[in-house]
């Protein structure tokens, strides 16, 4: 039974993760333009990936916070806006080549490895591949989980809205879907286990039958 709603902006990398054989029994695509409370209330958690439609999220803010008020989890990755998240995201240059030019200096220097998402990660690079910006302000009761060398906030979490709101400028779903970084099974599997209690196993694989489709499960309303 699918437990995690992957908020879906029609982007291929989001789709690639949610339809991958190792994840598709756990993740349900929720097309952003179909998102409302009725579409998500049966789920344990929501995952809002990088490359999400920020104005559309703002329009559905009440549904997201109602979901949190039910005691559930929401994980947000990449950028965000203060119009729906009580935090300030700022852009920074993306360094996705540090492991080539300076392999001892990853973009994140401080990680709280007691957090369940990070606790089982065997190598520091599994906890940080690259970042898309930083947070210069977080909700007042947020706990900080990751920082960069400059002390800027990369990952935080708060329980002040009822459930758990987790936010990070990492981009695990987009990069895992793209498959140019091949170690992200570690992070995404750990994240999945934290969100829904079930840890996927095995290597990421793709199903060619999922490409060139005439309909998309989770977006039937939009294409009807």
């Amino acid at each position, binding site marked *: 039974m699918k437990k995690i709603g992957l908020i879906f902006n029609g982007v*291929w990398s989001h789709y690639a993760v949610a339809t991958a054989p190792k994840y598709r029994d756990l993740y349900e695509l929720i097309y952003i333009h179909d998102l409302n409370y009725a579409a998500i209330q049966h789920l344990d958690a929501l995952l809002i990936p990088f490359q999400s439609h920020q104005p559309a999220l703002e329009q559905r803010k009440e549904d997201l916070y109602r979901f949190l008020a039910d005691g559930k989890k929401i994980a947000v990755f990449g950028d965000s806006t203060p119009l729906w998240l009580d935090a300030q995201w700022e852009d920074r240059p993306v360094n996705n080549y540090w492991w080539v030019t300076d392999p001892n200096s990853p973009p994140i220097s401080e990680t709280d490895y007691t957090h369940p998402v990070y606790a089982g990660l065997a190598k520091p690079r599994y906890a940080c591949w690259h970042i898309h910006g930083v947070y210069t302000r977080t909700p007042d009761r947020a706990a900080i989980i990751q920082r960069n060398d400059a002390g800027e906030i990369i990952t935080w979490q708060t329980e002040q809205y009822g459930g758990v709101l987790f936010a990070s400028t990492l981009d695990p779903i987009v990069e895992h879907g793209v498959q140019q970084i091949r170690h992200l099974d570690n992070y995404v599997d750990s994240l999945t286990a934290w969100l829904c209690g079930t840890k996927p196993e095995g290597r990421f694989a*793709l199903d060619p039958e999922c490409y060139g489709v005439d309909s998309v499960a989770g977006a039937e309303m939009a294409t009807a």
Partner: protein
Amino acid sequence: MIKALVVSNGIGGAAYYKSSDEIRYDLVEVTRDFDPDLTPYDLLVVPNGCDHVAMLKIRDQVRAFLDAGNAVLCCDGWFTNWVPGNRWIHDNSKATKDVRHFAKTDRHDLLKGVDLTKFDFEPHGMSGWWACGYIAAAPGADVLIEDTWQRAIVVLDETTTAGAIFLTASGPLGDFSFYGDADGISQLFKNVLHFLITRKTASTQELQPA
């Protein structure tokens, strides 16, 4: 001058398409009721990171747009079946370190001045960074660039419809010269635009009364 419509899904993917004396870009945002009027335009641009649920919703309009002789440029992974005749298939069976690009059929000089090693390696030496997967090209379409394993990575299809379909296997295409890319992606993009503008101008002249 030609008129182009760029599809935007709220992630800034339209930033690399700037109007000039030769082309004017308009932007259409994807909404729940996405149904853009394509009739004023000569070119539809579907940039990297676009919404292919929205594109599936308007596939009949896209087909009619192409059948009227217009053009589509899609530089993204179109996992839904909205591009006539051609499929993009995601694949991770090959190592990114082994990805190289090779010119194949270039009847319109679209690769003139293009350094394909810029597609092989990004400026810090990483390979396999540009495209993902491959294209199952339509019969008769030109495979402009193929990869190490002879899979179609860039395709120009002038046979499936009366228009022109230019596709990449998800590799971004736009004016990246701001980042110092003069003879890689940016040059290919300029060549493609020149081709599409010339093609449109020629077809318009054919329609003028004697």
